[in-house]
């Protein structure tokens, strides 16, 4: 239980150990600890950011899908409208064409009839004149009458 030099020796040892610890032991471990803390905090931050991004992306995707659907239905509606319009148009056109054809056919027929009438009229008049001529001739000459009849027959 004697107080002696050991006291001083122990104080010196204490000082050296503390100095060594401050200089070489504490800094690397402490630095590693704090760096890991920062890393974990960053990781958590990134994770929360990522989940936020994911939410945003999902929302965007849903929005796009909704828009696309709307567009598609719009296009479909337009197409339907367009097709019915086209059918309508085609029908109208066909009807008009048909009417036109009928009208032109009718006009042609009318023309034909008129021409035939004109022709007939001309022929009848000539025929009548010719017949009258022949009748007049026959009463004068039997032989000539014979000939006229033949000629008429041939002409008919």
């Amino acid at each position, binding site marked *: 239980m004697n107080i*002696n030099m050991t006291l001083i020796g122990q104080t010196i040892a204490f000082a050296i150990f*503390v100095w060594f*610890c401050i200089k*070489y032991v504490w800094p*690397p471990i402490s630095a590693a*600890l704090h760096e890991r803390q920062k890393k974990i905090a960053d990781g958590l931050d990134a994770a929360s950011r990522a989940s936020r991004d994911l939410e945003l992306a999902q929302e965007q995707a849903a929005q796009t899908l909704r828009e696309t659907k709307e567009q598609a239905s719009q296009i479909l509606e337009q197409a339907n409208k367009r097709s019915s319009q086209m059918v309508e148009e085609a029908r109208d056109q066909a009807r008009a064409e048909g009417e036109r054809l009928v009208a032109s056919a009718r006009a042609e027929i009318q023309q034909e009839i008129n021409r035939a009438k004109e022709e007939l009229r001309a022929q009848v008049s000539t025929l009548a004149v010719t017949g009258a001529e022949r009748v007049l001739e026959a009463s004068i000459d039997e032989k000539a009458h014979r000939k006229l009849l033949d000629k008429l027959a041939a002409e008919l």
Partner: protein
Amino acid sequence: MAADNEISAIYYIQHHLQNLTFGYHPQNGWSLASSSTEAVEMGFWAIHLDTMGWSIAMGVLFLWLFRKAGKMATTGVPGGLQNGVEMVIEFIENLTRSTFHGKNPHIAPLALTLFIWILLMNTLKIIPVDYFPELFGKLGFEYMKIVPTTDVNATLGMAFGVFLLIIYYSCKVKGVGGFAKELSLTPFNHWSLIPFNLILEIVGLIVKPISLGLRLFGNMFAGEVIFILIALLPFWAIWLLDVPWAIFHILVVTLQAFIFTTLSIVYLSAAHEHH
């Protein structure tokens, strides 16, 4: 026979409580003390080789272990050693943060050194009391007391180190004048009471390291004496008492290291504060 037993028991206890002392003896010159009276005769200029050796060994073990962990320290997933070391470091950091109110990056490593070093020195006590004295007896050393904290020189030495730091930081933070003012003008701020204040404050200041050192020494020494007394019991009774006492001492060992560390931080924190 009874008297013989008594004498051998006293001899046994004294033998186990005697440090291996090297110093200057008036008759024998520089030598190892061969008895406790010789050790006393050596006076102040002697050194306890066992205390110094074992305490330095424990300090080096601590520094080596923690330095190794520090060198391998990664910011990724830590291994076993690093995990343990980091746990201790975080514990000390929290302790320092909650107890120390100034700003000084050196306090936490200081507390770490104190805590682990004292813990390791105290833990030597769990080793059965006869192992090392017998072993070193075979090697020709008369005495071997392996627990440095049962030597009052060691605990007071560390407390003295803390005391020097208290003085150093008091002067550094408050200035020599500020420190002197604090010593002379508190608790009674009047010039006529300066001597009274001085006595009060200086006693208060000196009591800090002494109580710090003696508390650790007292606890460890008493525990050691009980271990030695248990070792004197008949063979069959030793383990019956030794095991519970050792288990109880796991608590004491940690607690005393913790108390020494915490009080050192508290004293140093007070040294950093202006009054």
